């Protein structure tokens, strides 16, 4: 007697377990390009892998990524990839080596856990950009959302526009250079690393303090501006960890017994 209801949604379909390499690229020597309009997430990623790992292509252009999620992830090879358009969430994560240009914007959590290489985003990025990033350079020419470089463990994030709340939250190493204004809670609970801000800072987070400027800072910023053609750098304020929350000298009880 209970009502008959339709349940047609099957989330398992999203995993695309049986996707095959579409092999739709135009290959010209060591370069290739393909249109992602009609490809699924998995097909785009399989095509990229096939080109880079199996065909030895070192320069790929992906047209019309169409703001799809999770595109261009897990590429562990030096190469160049150009996305002509915008990416959705979780794009360009877990990469080690590639130089990537995105002519549009990227959504949340792009370049997560990036190990090395270069990523240039021509427009905006969402929140959590460069989360847990470990190395390489990430340049966002537009604005970024909240929590940029959360848990950052290395590398450099450069932001041309504004950044949102809790930027560099729990940052552990690396650098952030932000040309615009920054929201509240900058550098909250950071451990190490440096944050350079040219605009206004709404408020500093817990244990984030103004740092001492050195020649090395000037040299690094000028070098990055030169590399990416950003003109002459404006005046920056530098922020570092105040080390009042710092408890790394205290060992966990389980660790103490090994020392003793």
């Amino acid at each position: 007697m209970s009502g008959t209801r339709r349940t047609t949604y099957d989330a398992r379909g999203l995993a695309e377990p049986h996707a095959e390499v579409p092999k739709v690229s135009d290959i010209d020597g060591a370069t290739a390009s393909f249109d992602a309009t009609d490809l699924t997430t998995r097909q785009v990623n399989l095509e990229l892998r096939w080109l880079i790992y199996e065909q030895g292509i070192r320069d790929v252009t992906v047209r019309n990524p169409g703001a799809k999620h999770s595109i261009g992830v897990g590429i562990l090879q030096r190469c160049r990839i150009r996305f002509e358009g915008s990416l959705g969430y979780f794009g360009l994560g877990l990469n080690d080596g590639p130089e990537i240009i995105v002519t549009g914007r990227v959504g949340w959590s792009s370049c997560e856990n990036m190990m090395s290489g270069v990523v240039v985003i021509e427009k905006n990025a969402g929140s959590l950009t460069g989360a847990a990033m470990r190395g390489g350079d990430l340049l966002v020419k537009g604005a970024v959302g909240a929590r940029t470089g959360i848990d950052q463990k290395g590398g450099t994030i450069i932001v041309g526009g504004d950044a949102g709340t809790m930027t560099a939250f729990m940052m552990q190493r690396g650098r952030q250079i932000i040309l615009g204004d920054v929201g509240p809670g900058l550098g909250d609970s950071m451990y190490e690393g440096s944050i350079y801000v040219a605009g206004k800072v709404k408020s500093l987070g817990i244990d984030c303090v103004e740092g001492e400027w050195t020649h090395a800072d000037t040299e690094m910023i000028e070098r990055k501006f030169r590399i990416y053609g950003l003109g002459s750098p404006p005046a920056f304020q530098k922020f570092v960890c105040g080390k009042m929350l710092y408890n790394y000298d205290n060992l966990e009880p389980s660790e103490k017994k090994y020392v003793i």
Partner: protein
Amino acid sequence: MCGIAGIIHRDGSADVGTEMTRMLQAMKHRGPDSSGYALFGEPSDLVVIRFKLADANDPRDFDFKERLDRNRQEVESRLHKIGASVDRVESETEYAYRATVRYDGDMKALADYLEDVPGCEVLSLGHSLEIVKDLGDAQEVSDLYRLGGFTGTHAIGHVRMATESDVDISGAHPYWAYPFSDVAVVHNGQLTNYFQWKRRLESNGERFQSECDSEIIAVYLAEKMSEGDSLEDAMHKSLEDLDGVFTYMAVTKDALGVAKDEMAAKPLVLYESDGFVAMASEEIAIRAVLNREIETSDPYEGQVLVWTR
């Protein structure tokens, strides 16, 4: 997780029914449980009442059909009794109805009187607002309620992944801001001071139809607006008063607003041009109505944005 979407045409009407269906369908993976629409058609002299007399997954017991028929007749006779002249009452599904009436009395009195009929919930009330919500994905709901071709100026929609209450129509978004005509809300997130606000608002005489935390926002905004606040002011106050994580959209007969919590914990992608504004939890939803490269941005924490048509 949930997905929300909103569009407003600032230079005339369009097929917002089809547009919203496309946007919501593109975000189906964010919430497969139910889909809902708050659509604003051409303003009319008539009052449009969307109501249901049972939920989609209520048990179909032996006298289900007769009870519904009986209650529907009761609704119609109450409409007459309260002084509304009925234009027509149409069945959208076996349990959901759309009535158009001529009525210029108190909206709260009308809603309360109808909801006193067993099983009746007024989903929306207004001169241009129509809330349609049901279980299933956006395409199924659109097909069931024939929303393709619904012409209007603005709309919000919601695909729900139920976390805080049951999977049923009462728990589905958008929520009408009872007893305000033509105000509705969709929400992505969780409110942590739900019970506090529910008790507070209930003691002020406000009515709740569901156990869903998001209903608070609609009722909260309605109360603030009844105290004389504009939509924008009420939304600013809500950032102080509501705890938790949220991106929510609110619509009135001529405005579409969005508010984001102080933590910016829930996503929103915004596309804005002179004549058209579209926003959604994911850019792919906006691409579903603007199939080309577009410039989008993400509003920041604590921001309230309002567009008028």
